[in-house]
């Protein structure tokens, strides 16, 4: 999870796109897997996401993030499976649990969508500095700066919090709290008291950030304060057309 959801410096074609294009692309990739119910198409979208990560030089990170999500998805898949009882039975387990073809296909679709829809956001954040995101939100989309700042600050804080949480778990393990237990329920129960230090350090950090922003003129900022100018180029046009095509294909049901 190291560096998940944070910007990675680079100069790939993807990095150089207009921030708005990257946001639209992320949204289109996400939307396509909800518009389409086709497993193959969604798998293709996952593959496309990985290709885009690779083109931005972040494939190793993408794969490790994907793998950690796959574990979680496997649990989701099994849970889903047991809840769907209608359809053509393919398998009957003891205790009267029946697996149906429809159940398997639906559960599979569910986890594929889950995987495919988390990746575009991670992709966008890894190739776009949060400053750029807030600049276009404010200038092009006319979002009030306050809201844009909250969104981008949240994106910036996630890696800090995950680092803090692993530090807290380390400190507790070192004094004998058995996080190395295999019992999942027990592990969750052990995690609950740790929310206190996490909450306290988060509140402290947010407070410090607010002070720092205030003293650097946060309240004076206007829609036109942004210094950087972003231009649309041929690449942006190509990507936007491709996105439109992807969404059209997904929504049209050419592949049901």
């Amino acid at each position: 999870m190291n560096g998940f959801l944070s910007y990675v410096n680079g100069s790939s074609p993807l990095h150089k796109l207009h921030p708005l294009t990257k946001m639209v692309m992320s949204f289109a990739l996400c939307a396509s897997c909800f518009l389409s119910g086709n497993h193959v198409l969604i798998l293709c979208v996952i593959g496309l996401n990985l290709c885009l990560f690779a083109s931005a030089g972040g494939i190793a990170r993408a794969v490790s993030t994907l793998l950690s999500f796959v574990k979680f998805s496997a649990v989701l898949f099994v849970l889903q499976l047991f809840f769907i009882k209608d359809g053509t039975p393919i398998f009957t387990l003891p205790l009267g649990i029946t697996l149906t073809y429809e159940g398997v296909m639906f559960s599979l679709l569910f986890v594929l969508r889950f995987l495919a829809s988390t990746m575009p956001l991670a992709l966008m954040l890894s190739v776009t500095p949060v400053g750029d995101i807030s600049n276009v939100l404010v200038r092009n989309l006319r979002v009030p700066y306050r809201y844009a700042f909250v969104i981008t600050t949240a994106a910036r804080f996630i890696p800090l919090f995950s680092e803090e949480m692993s530090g807290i778990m380390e400190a507790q393990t070192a004094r004998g709290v058995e996080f190395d237990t295999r019992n999942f329920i027990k592990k969750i129960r052990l995690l609950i008291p740790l929310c206190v230090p996490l909450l306290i350090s988060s509140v402290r950090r947010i407070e410090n950030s607010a002070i720092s922003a205030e003293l650097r003129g946060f309240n004076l900022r206007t829609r036109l304060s942004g210094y950087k100018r972003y231009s649309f180029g041929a690449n942006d046009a190509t990507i936007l057309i491709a996105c439109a095509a992807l969404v059209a294909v997904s929504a049209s049901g050419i592949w049901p």
Partner: protein
Amino acid sequence: MIRITGLSFQYGGGEKNALSDIDLEINNGDFLGIIGSSGAGKSTLTYAMNGLAPHHFRGDFRGEVTVNGLDTRQNQPEELARHVGSVFQDIDSQMLASVVEDEILFGLENFGIPHDEIERRMNDALESTGISELRSRTVASLSGGQKQKAAIAAIVALRPSIMVLDEPTGELDPQSSRMVFEILKKLNEEHGVTIVLVEQKIMLLCEFARRLAVMDGGKLILCGPVKDVLDSADRLEDAGVNIPRVATLARRLRERELYHGDIPLDIGRAKIMVEGILSDAAL
């Protein structure tokens, strides 16, 4: 310059004064170190200088603080920030962007610096803090010392005449701490920036600061040129502040009537002291 007269401050909901009856004048071009034990009111004193008290931290504010002639009660922190730049101890949470360049842009954009001037200011700030090569690096990939330099650069770009720093080296190792001090010295000597620095690292303060202010229990108990303050080592000890080992050595040698000169502030001057004693003895 900063002029503080009869300042007392109590945080809203607090039970006792965080600051009591402080008088302090900081002239242009000064390099003032503030030291004292935790809870002595050092941070609160910096909040009084950048206007966070009473605007951000509300409470009972008595007395007067003026920054370049502006009364801090009548001016909002962001107005005062054009004169006083602030740097804090908590490195990660004072950074607001994911790339160094954006970090520096943030303040420049907000304060409406003309866009044709931004590039020059950016370069000057990066250069005077020695981090030109870090311009397009992500903040997350920097070491603690580099992050603190970037935070200082973001303030330097705004060209305040005064900088107030609250334990900027608190989370740094000795080498990085020294580098931060070197940058502050350069800003002070070459650009005439007034430096007000809260710091626990007494040895570095003694080497770099011109004046020392010692706080204890919300009061300013000593303030003056560094070597004069070190002469009152007993009062420093009562305030929970240690003095550098070479200064303690000088005091021991004075007690033995071997030495009568100034308290040495660093190893170079301590060497001169010891060699002086031995050659005097030979005369």
